C-alpha cells in the first residue's frame, strides 16, 4: 500500500542539553517529546504522564527555570537548554529538599503520581514569590490536577515550603 512510504523515519536531530547537572549530546527523532526522552532514554521516570495533552500538569519539569509541561515540548526544541526534574531535588544521601519535606510534613500527597509536577511547579513559584500565600499557590498551581488530596494539604505544603526556605535563607545571612 502507498501509505507505507510515508512511514520512513525522518532524520534524527542533534540536541545538547543539561539535565539535572549532567550534560547530554543526543540524537533524537524530531517527534520525541521531552517527557519521553526523560523517561525513556535518560531513565528519569520520576516525571509522570497523566494526560499527554497538557491538562493535568503531572509531567511538569523546569526548562531553563520555567515550569514546563514536558508532554507538550519536543526534545528537539531544547538544544542548549537546562532541564531539572524531580530527581534533582533530593540528596544522594536520602535527604529531602525543603519543598519535599514540607509536602511530607503536611501530608501533601497520597498516591504521589501528580506530586513530581506539583514539586517542580512549586520550585518555580518559590523562585518568584518567596513566601506565597494560599491565593498565590492556587494561581501558580491551579492547572496541576490531583485526584487524591483535595488540594488543601498541597496548598499548605507549598506555603510551608516557602516559609522554610525563607527561614533557611535568613539563617544563612545571620
Amino acid at each position, binding site marked *: 500500500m502507498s501509505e507505507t512510504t510515508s*512511514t520512513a523515519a525522518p532524520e534524527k536531530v542533534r540536541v545538547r542539553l543539561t539535565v539535572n547537572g549532567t550534560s547530554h549530546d543526543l540524537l533524537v527523532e524530531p517527534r520525541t517529546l521531552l517527557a519521553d526522552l526523560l523517561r525513556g532514554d535518560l531513565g528519569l521516570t*520520576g516525571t509522570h504522564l497523566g494526560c499527554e495533552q497538557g491538562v493535568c500538569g503531572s509531567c511538569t519539569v523546569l526548562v531553563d527555570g520555567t515550569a514546563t509541561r514536558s508532554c507538550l515540548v519536543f526534545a528537539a526544541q531544547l538544544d542548549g537548554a537546562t532541564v531539572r526534574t524531580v530527581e534533582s531535588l533530593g540528596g544522594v544521601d536520602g535527604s529531602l529538599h525543603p519543598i519535599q519535606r514540607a509536602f511530607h510534613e503536611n501530608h501533601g500527597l497520597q498516591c504521589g503520581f501528580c506530586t513530581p509536577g506539583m514539586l517542580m511547579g512549586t520550585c518555580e513559584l518559590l523562585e518568584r514569590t518567596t513566601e506565597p500565600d494560599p491565593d498565590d499557590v492556587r494561581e501558580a498551581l491551579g492547572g496541576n490536577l490531583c*485526584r487524591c488530596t*483535595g488540594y488543601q494539604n498541597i496548598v499548605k505544603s507549598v506555603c510551608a515550603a516557602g516559609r522554610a526556605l525563607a527561614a533557611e535563607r535568613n539563617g544563612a545571612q545571620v
Partner: protein
Amino acid sequence: MSTVEDRPTTATTGSPREGERRWVGRSVPRKEDPKLLAGRATFVGDVTLPGMLHGAVLRSPHAHARIVSIDTSAAEAIPGVAAVLTGAQAAELVNPMPAFCAEPVPQTAVAIERVRYPGEAVAIVAATDRYIAEDACAAIRVEYEVLPAVVDPEAAMAPDATRIHETLDSNVAFHRTLDFGDVEGDLARAHTVVRTRARWHRMGAQPMETAGAVASWDPFDKSMTVYSNSNFHNFLPWAFAGMLGVSTNRLRMIPCAVGGSFGSKHFITKVLAIAGALSKATGRPVQYLEDRVDNIAANDNVGCDRIYDAELALAEDGEMLGLTLRIIDDYGAYFQFAHGQHGNAMAQPTGPYRISSLRYDVSCVLTNKVQQGFFRGAGADPGNFVLERLVDKAAEQLGIDRAEIRRRNFIRPDQFPFKTPPGNVYDSGNYAAVLDKALELAGIDDWRAEQERLRAEGRYLGIGLATCQERTGYNASEWWFLYDNPPLPATSTPESVKMDVDAMGGVRVEVGCPLWGNSPETVVSQVVAEEFGIDPGDVSVTYADSTTGAMSAGPGGSRLTIMLSGATRGAARTIRDKMIRIAAHAMEMDPADVECVDGTFRAKGAPGTSMSMADIGMRAHLFFHDTPEDESSGLVAVHTYDHPYSTPPSADRKDMGAFYPMVSHACHIPIVEVDPETGVVTLRAYYAVNDCGTVMNPTLVEGQIVGGIVQGIGAALMEEYRYGEDGALDTPTFREYLVPSMHEVPEIVVEHLETPSPFTEYGVKGAGEGGRLVAPTAIASAVDDALKPLGVWVDELPMTPERVVGMVTDAREGRP
C-alpha cells in the same frame, strides 16, 4: 437466618485500653512518602524489561457497529512493528474476560465482529516504541457497518429496542424487586408520602495514573510474569490466569505503586489481556499503558448511572416509616461485575434512620456505553443522595426543621448493634452527637445571618446539611446475593501479612495488598509498634507478589485499615507469644510472667532482667538447643484476617445477612453561593464531622476525607460522562470531563467523634469513601437552600451551570 446475636461480642479482647495506646491513634508521618517525593517509586509505566515492546490499541469511533473487515497489512509493514492482532487473533491467545454475572454476556478485551461502545478495542499492536505502535494503529483499515446506537436507558428497556447482545432476550440484563418489612402497610398508614424522581449521571474515577500492565510470556516453560496496577493479584490471580491462558501456578503477578484508583483498578482485565496477548504473540515482554482517552473511554472507570423513583412514607410527627426505591441503572454495554453496585447499596439504603420497611426494585439496563466498573462509593453514593433529598423534602412538607427531623429518626446509641431492614447490621454510632457537633462547628447561626444579609442584596447563599452512613469493610456476598442462583457465591474477603523478626531483631512485614495511594506501610508499622513497643520507623514493609500465597482482597470498600490492623496484629501476637516463650525459657521463668515492653522482654513488673528483640531473634534463628522443646527455629508468621463479622444471606433473600457491618457516619455542612443568572455554584466553606470509630492516624484519615469531599464536589457540580445522540462519547479527555482543581475547593474543616467498633481490632472502622458518599447530597441541599426563594428543587447531579440555569428557569415558569 442470621441474627444480630450471632455477632462476635468482644473482638477487641486483650487490646490495650485506649489510654495505654502509644502508636494507634497517632499522626505517625507517612512511611510511603519519601520514595514518592523523590520520584523513585516504581509505577507500571516505569517498568522496563530487556527486549520490551510497547502496545497500543485501535479503538472504535462508533458506539455500535458491525466490523465488516480489518486490513492490518500496512500496519504490519511498518519497521518496528512486531505484532498486529484483531479481536479474532487475540482470542486465539487469551480467553474472554472473567465475569461475575450469571447472564450470558461474553466480553473479550478486543472486540470480535461487533463493537458495542465508543472506544471499544478493535485491534492491538506491539512495536519497538509507543510512537511506532500508534503509527501502526493509524495504518489499520477497518470497515464498519454502523448500527443504531442505544443511548437512553429507558428507551433501551422497550421490547423492540435494538438489542445490545443477541444472547439476551432484552436489554434489561437483570431485574428484581425485593420487599423487606411491611412496605404496603407503611405506605397505607403514612400521613405523608414524599416522592422524587432523581437522576445520578455516570461519573468516573479518573485516577491520575491510567491502568497498565507489563506481561512477559515464557513460551518454553509456559509461564507468565505480569507487572500491573491491578489490586486483585493476591485475591483472584487464578481468574486472571484463566483469562491469560496460563496455569494458575505459573502466573506471577507483581504489584507496582499505583497512581490512584478509587475503585477503578481492581480487575483491569482489559489491559492485562491486551498485554498478555501481545506478549504471547511476540514471545517478548510487552508494556501496555492506557493513554487518557483509553482510560476514560474504555477502562472500568465508571460508577453508577441511575434514575430513581423514590418515596418516603412518614407519620405526621415526621417519623420515617418506609422507603421505596425504583431504580433504572444504565450499565453500559457489558455486565462483567453484575449488579455488585446494588448489592453494595443494600448495606445502608435506609441510612442512619429507624425506617422499618424497604422496597428495592432494580433494573440493570444495557446500552451502547462503556460498562460500569467501580468508583468510590460503589453504589451507595447515589443512595445517600436520594435518601437525603427525600428527608429534606419531608422536612419542608411537614414544616419540621431539617436537623430536627433527622434527630427524631436517628437510630439511638442504645439500639446498636442495629439490624437494618435488608439484614445488614450497623455496629455502633452516635448520630445525634455528630449532628450537634457539626452544627456547632459550622457556626450555623452566623451563616444564617450572612444569608439574610446577602438575600437583601439579591445574592443567594445556601447552607447544606446531610447526615449519612459510610458502610466499611465489605464481604463478598454483596457481589451475588441479588441472584437466587449465583454463579460464584463466594464469602471470603481475606487480608494477609507475613511478618518475620530476623536474627538481629529487625521486623519485616510483607503485605498482600498493593500501594494504591493509601498508607498500608504506615498502618502496619503503627500496629507493629503498638504490639512490640518499638518505633514504627524501624519496621520494614514490602509488597508480596502473587507467588507467596498471602491472600489479600486489598483496598476497596473502605476496608484496608480494618483488615490490615487485624492481620498485622494477629501476626504480631503469634510472633510475640513465641518470643515470650523463648525469653521465658532463657530466663528460667513461666511465660505467663514475661511481658513485652518497649521492644524488650522482661519479668512482669520487674524490669531488672530483660532480653532484647535481637537477643531473642538470634536465639530463635541459631540456637535450637537453647529454645523450648517443640519450638521450631525462626520467627515467622503468616496471618490471614478474615471478615470480622459476616453472616450468609437467607435462601429466600428476605435477609441479606451482615456483610458490611462496620458503619461510619458523617454530617457535612457545605456553604455555597449560587448565581442564578450564570448557574455557577461557588463553595464558600465546608464543615464535616466524621465518626469512623477509633482513628488509626488522624492526619491520614483527614486526608482521605478531604480528598473524598473534593471528589464529591466534582460529583455535585461538574463530573459527567456525556454522550451524543449517536452514542459518541463527548467527554473523552480532561478538557471535557472536568475534575475539580484547586480553584473549586474551599477551606474544608474536619472534626471527629470516635465510637469504636465492637467488631474490629482497636475499634477501627473504615474512612476511605465517606467524603464522596456525603458531599454530593450535602451540596445539593445547600444549592436548594440557596435557591429556596426561587422555588428550585435539586434532583439531578451534577449541578452544572447549564442545569442550574435550567432549574431556575423552570421554577420561574412554574414547570416541575
